[in-house]
């Protein structure tokens, strides 16, 4: 498949990009608002073209463990789900991080807690960036804000996952999953023919057996392993931060937002500017590693920041940690599947941050 443009939903873009990225296997379970991913993949029949396997599992618990098996066997594997399903996967994600396996997990978030709503939300920020499952581990978390980024982040995720032997999450939401936009797709990448030397691909006589496990009952050795993980995470923090700034150069007030909220905030910045407020937008693209230093550097000229999120205040904690108490930081959030309107955000900025 050559490079081409298509008009597509975000969920479909993920699926198409997965085929083109040379993904070996997709394992998933239906849940709104992301079921189009597996529907697109099963209709596209990639096993006839690239050889990619698509399997509907009996649950998210099963799908994440199928990922563990496939990833441990050296293959490029992914799943997608939405909030309740991602909660169900947490034990498996922790095992994958503990066994240092590369894979891609897509969360097209909906509102919670519980069954919540099928409308978009961003309340899984804590779960994605602070752990979610048990133990000291990190996911690399990418937050797309367009259908184009839904597509682009698939191959980016696999590159990062294999570079660091670490699970990567695309933290999207129902709005971007369902929205249609023009997307440019890259040409087809062939599936891998060579596999990592640590993978369980069959013990040839010329090598020792490979073992995929997260277990070690020797305290000293297991602490050393944990320290090694932490060094890896530190390296990711140093090298892989991604963010985008919009009108931040001369900004006095900055909105901080990711994903769908960031799209709305771009409009809010323009509205504020029309009113003579020097506003800007800072959009973290990697939610973990969080662009703390980059955000902090803005405090040289920025007087206040408003973290705009579709939750009750999650990323705002990282914003506060980044800028310390140097400037005023507030949060504006909507929940229940409600997407904030641009003018509400400008009002909140005036009320909470700029003051009278």
């Amino acid at each position: 498949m050559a490079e081409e443009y298509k008009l597509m939903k975000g969920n479909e873009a993920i699926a198409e990009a997965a085929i083109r990225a040379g993904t070996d296997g997709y394992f998933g379970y239906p849940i709104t608002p992301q079921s189009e991913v597996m529907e697109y993949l099963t209709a596209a029949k990639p096993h006839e073209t690239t050889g990619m396997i698509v399997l509907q599992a009996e649950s998210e618990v099963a799908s994440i463990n199928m990922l563990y098996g496939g990833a441990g066997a050296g293959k490029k594997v992914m799943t997608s789900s939405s909030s309740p399903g991602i909660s169900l996967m947490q034990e498996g994600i922790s095992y994958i991080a503990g066994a240092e396996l590369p894979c891609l997990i897509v969360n097209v978030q909906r509102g919670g807690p519980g069954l919540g709503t099928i409308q978009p939300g961003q309340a899984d920020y804590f779960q994605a960036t602070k752990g979610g499952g048990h133990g000291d581990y990190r996911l690399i978390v990418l937050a797309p804000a367009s259908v184009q980024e839904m597509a682009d982040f698939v191959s980016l995720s696999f590159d990062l996952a294999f570079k660091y032997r670490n699970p990567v999450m695309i933290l999207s939401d129902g709005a971007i999953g369902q929205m249609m936009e023009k997307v440019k797709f890259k040409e087809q990448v062939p599936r891998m023919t060579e596999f990592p030397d640590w993978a369980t691909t069959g013990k040839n006589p010329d090598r020792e057996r490979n073992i995929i496990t997260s277990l070690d009952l020797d305290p000293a050795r297991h602490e050393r392993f944990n320290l090694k993980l932490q060094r890896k995470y530190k390296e990711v923090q140093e090298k892989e931060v991604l963010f985008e700034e919009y009108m931040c150069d001369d900004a006095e007030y900055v909105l901080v937002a990711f994903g769908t909220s960031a799209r709305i905030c771009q409009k809010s910045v323009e509205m504020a500017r029309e009113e003579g407020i020097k506003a800007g937008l800072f959009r973290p693209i990697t939610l973990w590693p969080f662009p703390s230093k980059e955000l902090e550097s803005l405090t040289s000229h920025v007087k206040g920041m408003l973290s705009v999120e579709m939750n009750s205040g999650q990323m705002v904690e990282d914003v506060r940690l980044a800028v310390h108490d140097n400037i005023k930081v507030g949060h504006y959030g909507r929940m229940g599947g409600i997407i904030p309107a641009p003018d509400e955000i400008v009002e909140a900025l005036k009320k909470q941050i700029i003051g009278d």
Partner: protein
Amino acid sequence: MAENVLNKEMIKPENLVYTKTKVLTDNVMHYCPGCGHSTTHRVIAEVVEELGIQSEVLGVAPVGCSVFMYNYMDFDMQEAAHGRAPAVATGIKRLWPDKYVFSYQGDGDLAAIGTAETIHACNRGENIVMFFINNGIYGMTGGQMAPTTLEGMKSSTTPYGRDWMQMGHPLKITELVASLPGTYYVTRQAVHTPAYVRKLKRAVRKAFEYQPKKKGVSFIEVVSNCNSGWKMTPVQSIKWLDENMLDFYPLGDIKVPED
């Protein structure tokens, strides 16, 4: 002196009647002496050697006493989360369809927390071998009730014996999976006498030989002992198994391939 000379003379290749398979590593097994897990491991390793598939076999270990199976098998293995070995094996087999893939689980792992994965792997007809070690108890965590614990049988969470009014009935999951069209070969074996070990080995061999046919799951239950969990000596546990377990879990093939 004369005795030693005799021994040395006896140690010749043509006099060798048994040697440990090279597919088992030299690591000392952590199992309690007398435990059926170790014999079952040995049987699997011997079959892998005899079939010459050491470089083609990918195994999945469970959470349970056999969690360290990968320390003893000299081939590639993955250690799955509690109950999820059939899902992990599915992921591997779907992506490496020409390898020999197996999962190995205890009764808590396969028939309690992992029941959904067990039934659905069987129902999809995954082309894997599933080993199911039924010792009627949770060995690793200290002898709690398993789904397979017999009625009246004592465990650390049924100290007065399993009462079905409270705890339900022992689960014959092997008969259950045999009823699914996705299973190809289903058998129940044991390892507590040399004759049973030989029978088990024939079953294991068949199960691996069937795999390239891609006709579905080969499911091997091994009725086994947990002398520690049962609070018995190894000899007592074997006697108890013979007298109590086999009535409820009768040995033999439950489903044999028709083609």
